[in-house]
């Protein structure tokens, strides 16, 4: 056991491999935030009047809000006046094809192992690559267009599909939702927009790579995905960031809307810079992600693998409004060194016969602190609502922590809500179960540990599952016990 623990610690303490910096000339607005900066961002993006007004309303509301303090993560106060709220690679014009993209930029992605061309040719994945704030390349647009699927940067969507953006923007996460969502609504620079029309099954997995590059640049992405009646889309979001000594704030907003019979599957692999071994630097990942199942029998599924960031603080949520709609949340969160995570989900049951499943796997090592916080709320009209929640924590080393804060609020007597959580090095009950079935101790340990994350990984699309295994950086199999 000591050798295997040492092996894990060696692997998990490896230096961050994606910590290079791409020297590209950037266009940055002055640090700090005021109405002029908000107007400037809006003007730079050539936005319509209503959007500028919306940003300003969000900014004014943000001024009245206070940063929350209830979370189970600790950080130095953020100086919002020291952040550059807009940063874009300087380019002569918008690239029309990959050939026009800055070669430096493409090399950056190659180092990350996601060459756009290869993906374009081999993987068949359309990539909307976001470099800092502006989307620089969007591929496979035509093929998607054949099916009527719109997949573009948020800025393009504002220009080309303003009526769609206006109809759905802020309907799931209003600008007044919380401190960081308000900030995002005021200053969001770009992001992704996806619209899948009625009855269309999106022919490929959609993928976005976010990347934070410039120092002292907050990144405020905004993603909006709409699936019309009977549509299906699987969306992949991956994140890496170069090494920096200062903390950077990432306050994104993701909104998902599923109409009747639609299904949205949203997968995240987050590997931003977690800070060094002493807890210096790293990304503050304070993100608001929420989906709404508006129509009957719609489904939203969140899968996340959170291995990066100094602090991860987010609760991808589902509002189950349509009758018999389904919400799912699958999560693996790893904290090491001085990383902190306070993550989980909210399932708000409004419709009849709504169902939700929550599966959270937390792994803590080093001085890492990992919290699961989840809310299951069954409103009065949600007859026969059903929830099952399972949160498991695995602790590696005696200086880390694993915490569970589940909230269950039930107002309907026909609802069934169940929550189970375990925290351990490895569950004795599971071992006993396997052994009672004639499986040797070693085999049982191996099965259980590899199974610890597998339930979540198997929810990921294939390409991501492979990357997730790589990112965990630890083959848990045979490592513990």
């Amino acid at each position, binding site marked *: 056991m000591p050798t295997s623990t040492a092996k894990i610690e060696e692997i998990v303490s490896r230096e961050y491999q994606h910590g290079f910096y791409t020297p590209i000339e950037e266009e940055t607005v002055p640090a700090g935030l005021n109405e002029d900066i908000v107007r400037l961002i809006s003007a730079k993006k050539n936005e319509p009047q209503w959007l500028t007004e919306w940003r300003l309303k969000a900014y004014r509301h943000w001024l009245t809000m206070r940063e929350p303090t209830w979370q189970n993560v600790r950080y130095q106060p953020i100086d919002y006046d020291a952040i550059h709220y807009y940063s874009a690679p300087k380019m002569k014009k918008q690239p029309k094809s990959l050939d026009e993209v800055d070669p430096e930029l493409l090399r950056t992605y190659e180092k990350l192992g996601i060459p756009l061309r290869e993906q374009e040719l081999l993987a068949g994945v359309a990539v909307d690559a976001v470099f800092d704030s502006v989307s620089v390349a969007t591929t496979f647009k035509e093929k998607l267009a054949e099916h009527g699927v719109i997949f573009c940067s948020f800025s393009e969507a504002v220009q080309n599909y303003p009526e769609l953006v206006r109809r759905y923007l802020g309907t799931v996460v209003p600008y007044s939702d919380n401190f960081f969502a308000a900030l995002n609504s005021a200053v969001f620079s770009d992001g992704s927009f996806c619209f899948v029309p009625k009855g269309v099954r999106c022919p490929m997995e959609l993928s976005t790579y976010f990347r934070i590059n410039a120092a002292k640049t907050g990144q405020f992405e905004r993603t909006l995905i709409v699936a019309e009646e009977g549509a299906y889309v699987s969306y992949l979001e991956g994140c890496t960031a170069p090494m920096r000594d200062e903390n950077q704030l990432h306050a994104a907003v993701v909104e998902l809307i599923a109409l009747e019979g639609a299904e949205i599957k949203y997968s995240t692999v987050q590997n931003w810079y977690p800070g060094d071994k002493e807890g210096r630097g790293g990304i503050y990942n304070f993100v608001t992600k929420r989906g709404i199942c508006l129509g009957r029998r719609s489904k939203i599924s969140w899968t996340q693998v959170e291995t990066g960031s100094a602090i991860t603080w987010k609760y991808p949520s589902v509002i189950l409004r349509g009758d018999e709609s389904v919400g799912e949340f699958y999560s693996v969160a790893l904290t090491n060194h001085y990383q902190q995570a306070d993550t989980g989900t909210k399932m708000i049951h409004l419709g009849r016969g709504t169902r939700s499943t929550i599966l959270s796997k937390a792994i803590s090592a080093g001085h890492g602190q990992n919290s699961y916080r989840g809310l299951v709320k069954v409103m009065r009209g949600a007859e026969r609502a059903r929830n099952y929640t399972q949160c498991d*924590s695995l602790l590696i080393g005696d200086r880390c922590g694993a915490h569970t804060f*589940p909230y269950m609020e039930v107002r309907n007597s026909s609802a069934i809500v169940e929550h189970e959580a375990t925290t351990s090095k490895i569950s004795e009950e599971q071992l006993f179960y396997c052994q009672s079935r004639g499986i040797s101790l070693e085999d049982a340990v191996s099965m259980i540990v590899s199974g610890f994350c597998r339930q979540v990984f198997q929810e990921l699309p294939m390409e991501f599952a492979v990357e997730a295994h790589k990112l965990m950086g630890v083959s848990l199999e045979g490592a513990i016990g």
Partner: protein
Amino acid sequence: MSVRGRAIPTPDSMSASGFIPPLQGFGSYENAFGQLSQSVPAWLQQLRAAALDTFRQLGFPSQRLEDWKYTDTTPIAREVFQLPRRPPATEPRAELWEPWVFSGGAAMVFFQGWPLPLQPVAPPLPDEVSLLSLQDALAKEEALVRGLLGTSAPLNEQSFTALNTALLDEGAWVRLAPGARLATPIQLLFVGGSVEHPTILCPRNFIVLGDGAEATVIECWIGESSVPFLTNGITEVVLGEEAHLTHVRILAEREAMLHMGLTAVRQSRGSTFRSQVITFPGQWTRVEIHTRLEAPAATALLDGLFVANGSSFVDHHTTIDHAQGATTSRQLYKGVLNGASHGVFNGKVFVRPGALKSDAQQMNKNLLLSDDAEIDTKPQLEIFADDVKCSHGAAIGQLDEEALFYLRSRGVAAGDARHMLIYGFANEIVERVPWENARRRLRAALQERLATAPPEDPA
């Protein structure tokens, strides 16, 4: 900016904000403080004054505080309370409280917080056991009281603890010398209500077991009142090495009875704290149990049951602090909610850094019988050590359709079948009470409460 290891929260840590002052001001509390008997030791009077200051700074907790997220203190904060008369103006009706004296052992009965002079009904206690009112204990064992007061329930940012300390006058003092063992339970019966003005009562009890001592203490809080009657009681428990305490806490209140009850426990090596909490609430009830496992091999076993009807609010908070390793805790709390009642369960388990081989299990099960009822449950684990075994679970649901079908297929009427299943669900906790007379009384009370709000017969 840099991120370092976070501070470790203490169970009683609260943010500085999130409190509300009494809606009618602090005047009534200051008046009550002024009316307290001054014939107490100077140190106690100073302690009361300091606590009043703390309470004046805090006020009552608001729902902005995480620990009070589901608990609205407005029903308390809006009242102007008085202290009950000393001695009480009336006597309690015997038929109200006599059914609750059932142990056959030693008993103390308090009416409106005032000890009643009872004829001894039980054989005298052995010399190594003290069973006194707090005022008598101050007269006879002042140094001991002074040394213990506030050690299990420290005066800090807990509003209700501060208020209890500020208005502290009476309570029960139970002390067993090392090695003392009692075969029969000691009963502490608190009869509230029967007042004309909104009334506040702040009893403080002590249960102190020396090394190797063993006892069962049954605390009963009963009463009914048409005007708000707030009991803000604290029981401080200190268990020596290898001491074993079974603490049964029964609450059977009605109408405008408001109850804030804290049992705060410190446990030494090898000690066992076995707690059974059974609550039939009045208008507003919150019961907290905090136990600190301060040495290896300490064990806490917590069972709870609450059965609420009407518009009752009932809240159970438990905190188990595994301060040292090789400690064990088990919890099973069950709730039955009917009518428009609102139930809350919040169970916290802390495992401190280095508390290896801690073993904690927690389970909360709730039956929600009406669409007007609400249950909010929050089982919570905070683990700062790796070699531990901790689990918790919570479930909210209704009666098992298959079990109902089974009973009906055996000729049991639908209503009876429902009643049987609800009774069976709740009775699991009653059956864990280790004293037949208590179980008998509790079964009757349970039947009575379930009959008050007959379960709906599904169409």
